[in-house]
């Protein structure tokens, strides 16, 4: 049933937000602390448990995935309802923070991907797989 997926998602989201509120109170912050992240962890755990116990159904999957696939449109609606006029007045902040963070991240990619042994490139993987297929075909033919 599709509603079971929607209900599971709703329960996880509500429970995650409740735990986030409780965590906020415990930490003495007047805010929800990590509610969305906690809800995601609950949902992933629920899926693993459902698959293990054989209760995972196509309808359930559809109910959750429908909302997952609506996430970009919802973000678009969110963007369309922000106080952009006020944000534009602080314009340069956006340019500097955006540009700075990607320069920093590109550099970090360059550094980290050079740590340790170099992985096979996509071209090498495809060449090796093609070679293996040929060898397999030759072995079958022989």
């Amino acid at each position: 049933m599709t509603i079971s997926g929607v209900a599971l998602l709703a329960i996880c989201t509500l429970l995650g937000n409740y735990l986030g509120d409780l965590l906020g109170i415990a930490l003495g912050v007047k805010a929800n602390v990590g509610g969305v992240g906690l809800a995601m962890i609950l949902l992933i755990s629920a899926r693993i448990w459902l698959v293990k116990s054989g209760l995972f159904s196509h309808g359930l999957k559809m109910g959750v995935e429908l909302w997952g696939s609506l996430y970009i449109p919802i973000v678009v609606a969110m963007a369309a309802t922000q106080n952009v006029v006020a944000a534009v007045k602080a314009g340069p902040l956006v340019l500097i923070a955006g540009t700075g963070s990607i320069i920093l991240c590109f550099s970090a990619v360059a550094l980290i991907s050079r740590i340790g042994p170099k992985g096979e490139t996509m071209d090498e993987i495809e060449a090796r797989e093609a070679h293996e297929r040929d060898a397999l075909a030759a072995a079958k033919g022989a």
Partner: protein
Amino acid sequence: MEALAKLLNANGLLVAFAVVGLMMWTSYFISKRLTFGRIHGSAIAILMGLALAFVGGVQTGGQKGMADLPMLGGMGLMGGAMLRDFAIVATAFEVDVVLAKRAGLIGAIALGLGTLLPFVLGVGVAMAFGYHDAISLTTLGAGAVTYIVGPVTGAALGADSAVIALSIATGVFKAVLVMVGTPFVAKLIGLDNPRSAMVFGGLMGTVSGVSGGLAATDRRLVPYGALTATFHTGIGCLVAPSIFYLIVKALMGN
């Protein structure tokens, strides 16, 4: 005419679905035909949303962008906290735990740095621009992580709508830069194998930025980058309004 206005007012959420659907369709058309897939449709749609929010704000003098326009009040419900949290949590369903484990330690390091580095930089820039309260600083720092982490953090902490809009704009600008810039720096940063693609996904974060950028570089790398990038938003939403906020609050002393 009066009957139509009444109908649209009474069905605000449906009007919002229709309007956003049209915006998405137009954006994907622009992405395919005018940018040849170089800029992802979703990024164009979000930019269009911000632009329309600007128009709405100028027209009405209100603070809720398009939602202040008559008949478009439903946009506020569609883009509000309830449905946003609901949809973001749903995306966690697609995370494959087995595949995620394969990304291993290097992916985890990349994810950690990919959250921390932009956040610190975002907070620094926000301070330079005169923000000194912990809530605004955390929200703007989170916006430099991704355009989702920014507003989720801002909403959780109760930040000002203008600050939330800034954090979204920062995240979107970053995503667009990743999409457009990746093919040009791919060689320089060693982006030609699954391992570096996973590192890239973890560091850059934004799923639309990463998948758009990798698609323009080498289509075969997309799933590897998207794999680590899908964790990025979740981790950001978990740590930014909690640990990061508490640290910023302690440092700022307010």
